[in-house]
């Protein structure tokens, strides 16, 4: 072991850790470990005052390295690296040991063993820290341009926002026209403005910008590089265009749920989906006519394609309000209409409550059905018969003869496998793009430099889509306006002396161009392009001559960690 002086700080995380892990025991064990020069505990290591105290300790004890036993590095690795840096330490002399997710949360029924595991993990952390060496960040010069995928309202508004800040924007739209789904929708809640008007406004504004280029009938076909410097290829019609951008925003929108045949009578005449009903509303005057018949009675069936135990389990968020909003419009067209809403929970959240209230005032009747006992829709004579057991009237079975049944359909993710292959974005359970963290990093993805916006992330209404797209634009701007980006230097490194250029490393490298063949001292060896390497370590693992080391996780470090973890087992 080297003679590095390591400080070990163990966090209570309020009770998150200390309720299940004996924090003092961990601290005492650390104190007795070789290399540990100082061991302390903190109620919240991440709190400002604790950070100040740790910085003070680093300075006064002249620590060479720091280990903090706390939560997942996904949460606070960066927090504590910055703390170390502020204390004058190289940030890579910091090692995080996760005793929350890996000990207190995983073993909450066995405090002694959870504590024992924590002790060993901390020992391993000390072993790693003792062999750490200062590393310098890799600086990437960023490109002041952004690729926006999707020209719906989210994509267009993001493009305008980026353009406002002086960034060049390339917008790629798969369809022949911009505007996305709202183009076909009628009046939107809560403003009552027609979708096409909003699209027109955004389109006109974009047309006036010389730093926005829109490609329609186009799609992204290739992406390489990394955050700050992506090289992408866009196929627009027959043409393939190469672009260089610093960031990418995926705003690919949603698709309306398409009911299965016979799902709530779908397929019967006069059984329509909500988007179809919206179209009907835009074209109707004075009365609604379907299949040549005047509509006197409408039944709305909610949660079609949403909140299903089989199929889509998620709530589609916008449909409740969209349906009551549509009912108000129908009432305005024909005040004599009878409108029955068969719902489960009326999710007219926030101000949308007012729309729900208005629909009730305008005569809409609401019947509540249990998700386990959905209504049925059948043909009866010329019309339709809807049967429902209504909780609000004490569980009465009610039959509603209807002229029109509107299936209040939700949103589903767009399917675009080719794009997914290019972007390599992970999806959440419903098939929508997944953010890193809904609160900490709500528009960021695990691919640095690729952001998500709008309903591609989850069902959202217009305002919510726009807000999230502007949040994505804000993140892009914060990243690109500085002109450079510092990346952690935890990348692979080849020893030219040992390398025999067998090519195994290139075969396993998932990042195109990250390992290249070069000539050093007259022999062919592998070399790593630091800007492209993600530090996954796959190459280091397969190298038969052990010529590749991963910075921060060198073979010596990992061996020492294993020895520390398994000390009792081996001896």
């Amino acid at each position: 072991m080297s003679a590095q002086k390591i400080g070990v700080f163990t966090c209570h995380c309020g009770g998150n850790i200390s309720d299940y892990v004996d924090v003092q025991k961990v601290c005492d064990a650390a104190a007795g470990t070789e290399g540990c020069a100082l061991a302390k505990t903190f109620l919240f290591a991440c709190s400002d005052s604790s950070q100040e105290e740790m910085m003070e300790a680093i300075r006064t004890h002249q620590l060479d390295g720091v280990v903090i036993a706390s939560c997942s590095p996904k949460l606070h690795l960066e927090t504590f690296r910055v703390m170390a840096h502020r204390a004058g330490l190289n940030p890579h002399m910091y090692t995080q040991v996760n005793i929350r997710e890996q000990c207190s949360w995983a073993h909450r029924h066995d405090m002694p063993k959870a504590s024992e595991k924590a002790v060993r993990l901390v020992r391993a952390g000390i072993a790693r820290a003792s062999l750490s060496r200062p590393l310098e960040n890799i600086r990437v010069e960023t490109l002041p341009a952004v690729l926006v995928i999707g020209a719906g309202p989210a994509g267009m508004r993001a493009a305008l926002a980026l353009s406002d800040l002086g960034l060049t924007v390339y917008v790629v739209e798969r369809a022949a026209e911009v505007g996305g789904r709202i183009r076909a929708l009628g009046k939107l809640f809560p403003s009552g403005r027609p979708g096409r008007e909003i699209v027109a406004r955004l389109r006109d504004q974009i047309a006036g910008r010389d730093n926005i280029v829109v490609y329609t009938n186009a799609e992204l076909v290739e992406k390489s590089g990394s955050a700050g410097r992506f090289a992408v290829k866009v196929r627009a019609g027959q043409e393939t265009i190469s672009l260089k951008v610093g960031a990418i925003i995926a705003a690919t929108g949603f698709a309306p749920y398409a009911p299965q045949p016979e799902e709530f009578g779908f397929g019967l005449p006069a059984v329509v989906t909500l988007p179809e009903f919206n179209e009907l509303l835009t074209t109707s005057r004075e009365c609604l006519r379907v299949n040549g018949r005047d509509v006197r009675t409408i039944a709305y069936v909610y949660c079609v394609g949403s909140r299903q135990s089989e199929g889509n389990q998620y709530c589609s968020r916008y449909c409740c309000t969209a349906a009551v909003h549509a009912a108000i419009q129908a009432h305005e067209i024909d005040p004599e209409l009878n409108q029955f809403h068969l719902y489960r929970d009326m999710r007219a959240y926030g101000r949308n409550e007012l729309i729900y209230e208005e629909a009730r005032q305008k005569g809409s009747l609401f019947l509540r059905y249990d998700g386990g006992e959905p209504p049925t829709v059948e043909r009866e004579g010329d019309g339709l018969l809807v049967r429902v057991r209504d909780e609000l009237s004490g569980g009465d079975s009610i039959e509603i003869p209807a002229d029109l049944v509107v299936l209040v359909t939700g949103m589903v993710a767009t399917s675009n496998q080719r794009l997914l292959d290019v972007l390599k974005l992970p999806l959440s359970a419903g098939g929508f793009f997944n953010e890193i963290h809904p609160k900490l990093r709500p528009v960021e993805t695990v691919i640095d430099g690729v952001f998500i916006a709008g309903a591609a992330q989850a069902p959202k209404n217009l305002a919510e889509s726009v807000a999230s797209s502007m949040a994505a634009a804000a993140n892009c701007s914060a990243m690109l306006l500085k002109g450079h980006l510092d990346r952690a230097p935890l990348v692979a490194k080849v020893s030219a002396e040992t390398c025999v250029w067998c090519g195994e490393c290139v075969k396993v490298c998932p990042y195109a161009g990250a390992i290249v063949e070069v000539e050093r001292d007259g022999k062919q060896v592998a070399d790593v392009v630091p800007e492209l390497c993600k530090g996954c370590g796959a190459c280091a693992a397969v190298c038969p001559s052990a010529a590749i080391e991963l910075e921060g996780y060198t073979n010596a470090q990992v061996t020492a960690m294993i020895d520390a973890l398994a000390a009792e087992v081996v001896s």
Partner: protein
Amino acid sequence: MDYDALIVGGGIAGMQSALTLGDMGYRVLLVEKEPSIGGRMILLSKVFPTLDCASCISTPKMATTAHHPNITVMTSADIDGIERDTDGSFIARVRKKSTFVDPTACIGCAECERECTVAIADRFNFDLIASRAIHIAFPQAVPKKAVIASDGISPCTYTCPGGVEAHGYVSLVRAGLYEEAFRLHMKDAPLPGSLSRLCYAPCEKQCTRALAEGKIEIRGAKRFMTDYYYDRHPVPEYGVPADRNGKRVAVVGSGPAGLTAAYFLARNGYAVTIFESAREAGGVLRDATPPYRLPRAVLERDLHNITALGVEIRTRTDVASVADLKAQGFDAVFIAPGTMKAKEIDIPGKDLGGVVDPLTFLKSAIDSKIDLAGKRVAVVGGGSVAVDSARMALRCGAREVDIYYRRSRKEMPAHETDVQAALDEGVKLHELRAPMRFVGEGGRLTAIALQETKLGAPDASKRAAPEPVAGSETEVAAEVVIVAVGLLPGADLFPGEMERRRDGTLVTNKETLATSLVGVYAARNAIIDPTMIIQSIALGKRAAFHMDRYLRGESEPASFDLRLPRVTHEEVLSRNAITTRAPEKMRMLDPLERARSNAEIEVALSEDAVRAETGRCLDCGICSQCHQCVETCPADAIHFDMRPELVSVRVRSTLLATGFQLFDARRKPLYGYGRHANVVTAMQMDRLLAPTRPYNAVLRPSDGKAPSNIAFVLCTGSRDCTVDSRLCSRVCCMYSIKQAQLLMGALPLAEVTIYFMDIRAFGKGYDEFFEQAKGMGVYFVKGRVAKIEETTDGDLLVSHEDISGGAGKTVAQHDLVVLSVGLTANPKAFSILKDANVEADAFNFVREVDEDLEPGRTTMEGVFVAGTAAGIRDIPDTIVHASAAALQVAAYLRTGEVNQ
């Protein structure tokens, strides 16, 4: 330009916007009214739907915000107003509230919290537990600095002419810290023994408790702590200050004013000599204060407080002139001669033997040099001196003592309690009688001729003027008459040396008490009766303050009185729900027992009584300024002379992130919040579940029992037109489901029921979270709760309609009910903007011009809004909205740059 953007509010929205703008390179000023940034989120337990710990998400944002090179954070700061300048920029006036703690010095060790003697409801724990007047907001506070809660100076402290911190020592006595209470008093004034016996206690007259069941015996508390201290410390704990400054001060007169000035000057390192013409020191305390009021031993011990500092008292020493003192090498002189003589009455017979002045009489009587056995003594006058003279006459053996007063009893300047005590002891009072002449034989008084009077129109003293009633003359026999009709200042000291007023008193500067001679100060108008000595102490203290400044060569004018504004009784009463408790009263010895004895007649309160009495203190100003924190602070960070600071900053844009207000559950009286102990709000439940939870367990408030059957009442204050709150609050369904899940983890055997209208689990992963709760066994009952009643054992009867279960109107019993209170607009956003171009929506949120396409843009150019200030949203939506709003700000700023 000071900053590119001013962000008002340091909650999650304000921090997110600040970080976004800061990362883009803009300079941001973030102003937060609370002592810490972090808003409400940092106080939550876990957050839905991921069940992340709220602290874990908030703390890094808080730390990053505080340390961001482009962000300046001001906490405990209010925006007094924002005005738009002609160039489009804004001038914001920021008031940095006085926290009495220097944040640059405070190290956040919380030692002060442990010593603080004032408990307050911990608002960061939503009143579940107590915090202290000095406190660190919460464990993860950023900055982690102590602050002192103060609503102003308490009325008792504020009103004391001598600046004695009455609230401070009351609060120390309440805490059982009697010696500390004494020492605090000694910081403010040196004669606690005398004051505790004599003072007319203006503090008690200002006591807010007087508006409830009765004022607190503040003087009684002082009496107790002083007796306690003097019992244990027969001599002072201190001696002559080590660091004398070599300067000498002469004080003429050893009454309360002179003693006080000497005390403060000596503490500041001056060598002080008091010149006293009488045989013994003490002035009015010695010569005109009967021992039954002030035992001599207490007076001696009080004097010791001064002499222990090395103050020399030269008794029987007359001072010839100020020039003489200067010649003796004194650098400054304080003249405090006190009351020198009694007013005479100009009627026939005034020179008869047996007609005496009260000062001569009292002095002789106190020295036991008079025997009045068998004599009839008449006293003329109605002031304290008259009453004291009468009572002393009794104690000198007089057969009969009669007071003749020309007005009626209620006009008597003497304190009513003293008048009554005198009557109880056997003194007779004759109202509306004025002496016409003293009748004598052989040069000695035998009788007094009196005339009846009646009360006429008010005179210059605003009291009814006595008018003689013609033909009402009577004669009463008396061998001694004490003429106590008023006192006059000494006007014959040091003739010719200084400017004088027409009445012979010295001309002095009202603020500094400086006379026309440089370096010579004088206590003006020192006419007192012994109950008024605090006035003299005030003068002595004021003189010492200005003499010290003079002697240190400070030339800048300074004010002695730097009191902060006082809190009003109304503010205090509106803040506290007052439980009345029977007051303790100081009592006197039995009249028959005391009337012929010089023993002290007032009986001290017992320790129990004094603790009960001080326990009634309402802590009007909140902080009592007991100075325990000052004493204990290792960083010397606490300064009660800190004052609010106004700073003007120029900013290019303004972003309102002023957040929301929680619905006040008391507005739904049928739910019993505030009446039923076991009805809590969801915010309180979140605290009960948080990692920094107040009880380290989920307990119900009434009896500390772990609840086993918990109910949530959704839509409390939302979707409810009866409380003018029609909107849905968006978050309550989800936070209730979250709490239900956490409760099932914390209390595995507990049943949890959620009464709802609609479960609005609309966000990403929310419905799945709802299903998960159902799977865990949370009962969901569709139906609105009508009312909540309490059983005798603290359980709650929840009347509701069970719609989904089909049971109709029914009553369920729970042992804890959580009201899932809604969120409403914070009108604060509008009060800070001077020109009212920022419009509100119908629900008092900041209106966005185009909610669909321009999130964060208000009706006023350059002013933006983020988060819940624009409408209720949950945390993920708030963060996204705040980023979007920051981008709007950036776009606005850039447009300005491009146009330039």
